[in-house]
């Protein structure tokens, strides 16, 4: 009997893997900034999934570079069927920092960066460096975005190169105070553009 050899082409029609495990973390979408005024992830658009498919979603920020020295990058969500990135947020924020010349350190709550029942964008990276080597990275976890019962929690941690040559360790947590599902997330700078960098969206399975 002749041996039948399968190759990449001959299995190209396969779209599901039956019971073969594929891991719990799935890359959904990668957006690469290029002088971008916004970076948006919209469920059902451009292969983005932000619905009940996954109970947990993770955004990873890799070397975001702001066009303006001291610029900021923040985020908001939009409820399914809604318009505008203006959901109600209550959040906490704190940070640690250390200056490169060892002249200053801090660990403190940052009142100016938190929100209380606000529809503004939530600060993630404040006061960024736009030096050529000044990127910032981190991750944002969002839980139960499709729930129509509970508020939508999220947690963030970021490592930022500050415009005055500090290392910053940034924290934010809170919730969208809505029982509507959230199916769109947008990131944007306060001024100028996100000059460069990558934002990746992952889904985390629960079974």
């Amino acid at each position, binding site marked *: 009997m002749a041996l039948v050899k399968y190759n*990449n082409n001959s299995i190209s029609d396969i779209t599901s893997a039956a019971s073969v495990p594929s891991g719990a973390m799935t890359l959904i979408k990668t957006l690469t900034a290029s002088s971008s005024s916004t970076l948006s992830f919209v469920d059902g658009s451009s292969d983005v999934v932000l619905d009940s498919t996954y109970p947990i979603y993770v955004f*990873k920020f890799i070397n975001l570079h702001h066009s303006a020295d001291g610029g900021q990058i923040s985020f908001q969500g939009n409820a399914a069927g809604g318009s505008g990135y203006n959901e109600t947020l209550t959040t906490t924020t704190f940070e640690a920092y250390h200056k*490169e*010349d060892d002249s200053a*350190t801090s660990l403190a709550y940052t009142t100016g960066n938190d929100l209380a029942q606000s529809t503004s964008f939530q600060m993630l990276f404040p006061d960024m460096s736009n030096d050529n080597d000044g*990127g*910032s990275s981190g991750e944002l976890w969002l839980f139960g975005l499709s729930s129509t019962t509970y508020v939508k929690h999220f947690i963030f*941690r970021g490592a930022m190169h500050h415009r005055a040559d500090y*290392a910053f360790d940034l924290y934010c947590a809170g919730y969208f105070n809505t029982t509507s599902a959230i199916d769109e997330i947008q990131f944007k700078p306060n001024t100028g553009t996100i000059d460069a960098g990558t934002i990746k969206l*992952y889904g985390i399975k629960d079974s």
Partner: protein
Amino acid sequence: MSIKYANNNSLSAITTQPSGLSSSAMTLLATETASSSATISFTSGIDSTYKEYVFRFYDIHPATNDTELQVGFRDGSTAYDATKTTTYFNSLHYENDSATSLAYVAGHDQAQATGFLKIITTGLGNDNDQSCAGELILYDPSNTTFVKHFISRGTAAHQEDLTQDVFVAGYCNVTAAIDGVQFKMSSGNIDSGVIKLYGIS
């Protein structure tokens, strides 16, 4: 027509997965198990393949009492001496409930330093049941434009019988690629424990 069965051999020519199949974004690249080890080094596999690398360590038990788990980054030479500026803070709670704390620890951060960085604990105990665990995330190590950010969080059993939650972050202030990472204790060997390296696609 006869039925054609596929087996492992007949599928050996397949090297890529059809686009319709999902795969895990997290790939285990290496596992290192300490056994009275002076150092644990990851000298390959840290390159442009992934934008994010995650080290997970658990059951790290030091041979010497009152030590710290440290990390160094290799940026082109054979030494793990990339220049770093970092932050370090922790919370702690004694087993006897006598004290708690949340504070920045200036003695364990670095300012443009090339030495090994304390990432997990102050005063890790070496009682038989004491150890530390945690993770270290390194972003885009092969990038030759930006500094190399990293964040770490670890929990440890202190030699004075308290638990610590340790947060470290910062950057290798170099534009050279980081192509190796080494872990070692501040004194003595890593008696036992496991460190795993993952790539995030």
